[in-house]
Each structure stands twice: as structure tokens, then as C-alpha cells.
């Protein structure tokens, strides 16, 4: 089982990228689980035709220990196992603690043993703002962390913060930094700036996704581009990226 955590600035395209990679791998015969770690609970939306999914925290609050794996884990496009950790209402509670509770609940119910996925993607929100958001990179969870960024300064800044967090846990049994994913926004010196970021953290840019209207068009349909336009260059790019991450 390969476990991969994807971090990056809010709105940078994490969920789109992860969902497309999950869809591509699922279509190639892999059993894939995608776990959204964001109170917005929209990570797996594109795998479910835009239909929202009940979150672990909501289900646990409603049903307590009676909540079942079948309720927490649903099947999306190509059989991708979709999970949303969930979180508190905006402006209330503690989102970081929520992630921990959700992960504990999944472990308690034996999710990994029951479904035995080949690949698990943790799609983690914006930044590593507190202890709870390091949960996916802790021992026993992800093996590798990949950071998505564009060439925009704010995205690079957030990516650097995330890479720094991963670096600070180096040698402590946490996930290691696997590389940077460039999700292009067509800004000046985009490739150079992201390459410099990768150099700073002694890692590489493992893949690039071009800025494409087709990806947005698929999203409008509530689908990944892999599902909506499977023969497109964009779908192929996601497939290549997913395979590269899987093999690295």
C-alpha cells in the first residue's frame, strides 16, 4: 500500500489534481482511496459527480460508535474509495483536532485492512497550520508528501512553509518530501521560480500540469478531466504524474 499526502495553498488545485490522479490510477486497475482532510469536505466532489459526501466527523457526531465503514467510505468514479474527514463550522471548533479524530475513527474501524487499497491519497488543506494537519504525514500514515504550487508568490510561500514542516520532522519517522508538483497559472518565470523552490529543499519538480480550459470544463460538469475527456492530453498528463508518483 502506497500512502501519499498532497499539500498546497488553498485554491491551488490540490483536490482537482488528486482526484484526477486517483481516477487515472483507478482506471488502470488500482484500488485507490482518497481522503479529504479539509473541513470544506469537497475533496472527492469531482469523483462523485459533484454530489457531497457525509463526513466522518458528522457521521460520528450523529451516530457515535455505531457509525459503519460503509457510511464513511463511498465509491466514486471507477471505484475510487471516497472519504471526507470533515470539520467544524467555519469560525468554530478545532479543525486540526477534527482531522485527528477522523483518522482515529478510520483506524478504529479498520478501513485500511478492510478495503486494502493499493494507493491512499491524503488531500490536505492549505497549510500545515497546527499539529492536527501534520497527522497525514506522521508515522503510520503517508510515506511521502508532495506539494502542489504554481509560480504565484503566495503559492510558493505556502509551499515553502509546508516543505519546511516536512523537513523539520526529517528522521523522526514522518513522511519524507517526495517532490513538487507544478500546477501552472502561466505567470512570469513560473518554471524557474518553482525549480528554485525545489532546489531550496533539495527536491525535484516531479510533474507539471498545464493551465487548461478543459480541466475547468470537466470541473463544471462535476467530473475529473480523466472521466470527462479521457483521451485528452490533460488526462494523459495526470496519468503520467500519478504513475511517476507511484513509482518513485
Amino acid at each position, binding site marked *: 500500500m502506497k500512502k501519499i499526502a498532497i499539500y498546497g495553498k488553498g485554491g491551488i488545485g490540490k483536490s482537482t489534481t488528486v482526484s484526477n490522479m486517483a481516477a487515472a490510477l483507478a482506471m488502470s486497475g488500482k484500488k485507490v482511496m482518497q481522503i479529504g482532510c479539509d473541513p470544506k469536505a469537497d475533496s472527492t466532489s469531482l469523483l462523485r459527480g459533484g454530489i457531497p459526501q457525509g463526513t466522518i466527523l458528522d457521521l460520528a457526531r450523529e451516530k457515535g460508535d455505531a457509525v459503519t465503514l460503509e457510511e464513511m467510505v463511498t465509491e466514486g468514479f471507477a471505484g475510487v474509495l471516497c472519504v471526507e474527514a470533515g470539520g467544524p463550522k467555519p469560525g468554530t471548533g*478545532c479543525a*486540526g*483536532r477534527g482531522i*485527528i479524530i477522523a483518522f482515529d475513527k478510520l483506524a478504529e474501524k479498520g478501513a485500511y485492512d478492510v478495503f486494502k487499497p493499493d494507493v491512499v491519497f491524503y488531500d490536505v488543506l492549505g497549510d500545515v497550520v497546527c*499539529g*492536527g494537519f*501534520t497527522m497525514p504525514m506522521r508515522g503510520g500514515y503517508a510515506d511521502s508528501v508532495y506539494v502542489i504550487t504554481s509560480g504565484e508568490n503566495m503559492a510558493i510561500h505556502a509551499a515553502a512553509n509546508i516543505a519546511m514542516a516536512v523537513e523539520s520532522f526529517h528522521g*523522526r519517522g514522518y513522511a519524507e518530501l517526495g517532490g513538487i508538483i507544478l500546477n501552472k497559472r502561466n505567470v512570469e518565470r513560473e518554471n524557474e521560480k518553482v525549480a528554485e523552490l525545489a532546489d531550496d529543499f533539495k527536491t525535484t519538480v516531479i510533474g507539471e500540469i498545464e493551465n487548461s480550459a478543459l480541466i475547468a470544463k470537466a470541473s463544471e460538469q462535476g467530473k475529473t478531466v480523466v472521466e470527462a475527456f479521457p483521451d485528452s492530453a490533460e488526462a494523459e498528463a495526470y496519468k503520467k504524474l500519478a504513475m511517476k508518483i507511484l513509482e518513485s
Partner: protein
Amino acid sequence: MKQARKVLSTYSSDTFGVISALYGLGGLLVMHDASGCNSTFTTHDEPRWFGDDGLVFVSAVTEDEAVMGTAGDRLAADMIETANYYHPKFTAIASTPIPWMTGSDIDLTAAQIEESTGIPSFGFDVSGMKSYEAGASAALLAITQRFCTGEASTRKGTVAILGATPLDIEEEQLDHISVLLRDSGKEVICTSSMNGTLEELAEAKNAEVALVVSVVGIDQAEYLYKTYGVPYVIGLPCGPVTDRAVTDALEKAIATGKPVAVFEDAVSDETSKTMIIGEVVASRSLALEKGGARVIVPTQDSKHIAALLSAGDKVIVDEAELENELKSASDVYADGLYKFIIPSGARLIKVHHRAYSGRIY
């Protein structure tokens, strides 16, 4: 109002359960907390504190450390320094609400200590919000898994007593069990973990049979059973009936090689006006001794509780529900602190439970 308590107290916390289970085994024990845990535990829940040396500390985590996430590294440094001075046999950290809520990685801190000192180290990510059962179970299992390893060589006629902590068991009860076992021709080679040592715990795998005297020992008993085939008996001898039942059950477990609870065939009388409130193993054993009393378990933090109850017994943690249940009682066996909820006309027979009233009685 559900869960509101007007007169009843709470049970000792999971944090204290961890420390109680490990106390006396020669470890450096730290409650990762701002302040207060240490004094509450030692003065109320730990009778050994007054007679034995014990390396029990509180980390004194500060608001600044909690907010900035630096408590773990500082705690590791403090414990490494202390461990290098005292040379404990192991170290253990039990979490509390603040580090638990802020997502502190207790396992990582324990790993840092072990890597630096070479001393086996444990992290228990308890919340301080569950009962002692959760912490004591986890600690007894972890320490057994770590130190009771290697090949086993079964010694005939030997018994390992499991699940014994002062939160549930009194010294006098332990003395009674020891005499009972000795008189029935058994040798106790391990008492985990009251009055026991790590070396004795390592011997538990060689026991012919184990006696589990409280629910917190069931996980460690299952480990010994699954790993080494040590069968176990669940029960607390507390009088002629249960003394006989326990000694018979020990022989039965040895003969069949399978676990057995002394009260598994006893059915509580749903109409009985005699009720017993307390830890499930002690209470069901007492019900067997008294003949048909109903058991009410006021905690819910062990996964084994439900399987140990019979029809007519209940888990009740809500005060109003308990008050209602007790209306039909004529005699109630319970800790003295329950006197505030016993209906007029009913008789309270006090059964001290340190996990509930500490050293008040």
C-alpha cells in the same frame, strides 16, 4: 438533563490509569500536563506514593509551548536528562487534555527519548477525559508486549495475576488471593502490576494459567493467550463461593486451555432488589458471591464490559438514569461516595473503590 451530575463524582482519568498501571515497575513516568495532575494522582489515587520511591512527574507544559508546538521537544530534552540521571528501566508519557487537543505526537516524543537514551520508552495518547480503564488497559498491554517476549517455558502449578492496580484492587484483596492460590497449591510468579517487578512480568508467559482480577487486565491476558497460549480466568475471589469458583475455573482453564469467566454461567436476577455498582469483574464476582444481585457498571471505556454482563445487568453512566434505576433497590453495594444517590429506605453497603473516591474512605 443528560450527562449532568448533581451529586456523583467522576472516576479516575485515563491518564492516571496509565501511571497507576506502571507505577512501581521502575520507570520514569510523566504526565504531560500544565500542573495539578501529579499532586491529584499521588495524594488521592496512589497509595504507594507514601511508602515507596516513585519517579512520577508532571511536564508543566506552558501556554506558550502549547500554542507554539514546542512542548514535545522540551519534554523530550527534560526526560532524556532525567533518565540519564536516574537510569529508569523504562520511560512513559501519559497525555492530558491540552497536548491531546493540540495534537501533540506523544509517540514521537517517546521515540526521541528511546533513540537518545536507549531506554525503552512509551507514549500514551490518552485524553484525560476517559476513565482509568482506557489508560490502565493500554499501559498494561504495552508494557507486557514490550517486556514479556521471547520463548516461553510453561511452569506447572504457576499463576500470573493480571489487571491488578490500586485503582481497583486493595492490598487486602491481593493478600486474600495470594493465600487462596497458595492454599490451592499454586505459585504466583507475577502480579501485574501491584507489588510486581518488570522481571516478574517477563515471567508471565511461563505461567500455566492467568487470573484476571479486573477488566483492565483483559487485553494483556489476551496478548499472553494469543502469543504464548496462557489460558486465563476472569474473576475476583471475594468470599467462599467465588474462592471456590476461581480455583475450579483455574483448573478448568488449564485442562481446556481456554479462557473462562467465573461468572459466565451466572445470570443476574432482573427483579433483584440487591444492586452492585462498580468495576465489572469485581461487581459480577460479588454478585456471584451474593447470589443473584444485579450489576450496574458506571464506566464505559473498556470494550470488554458488555461481554462480561448478563441479562439484568446494565452500564449506566448517566446520573438521572442511575437515580431512577436505584428506586427499586433495597440493598446497594457501592463505593461510599454513592451514598448521595441511594434512595431513602435502601441500605448502602460500602465497597471501597479507589478509582472513584480516592482515599476519602
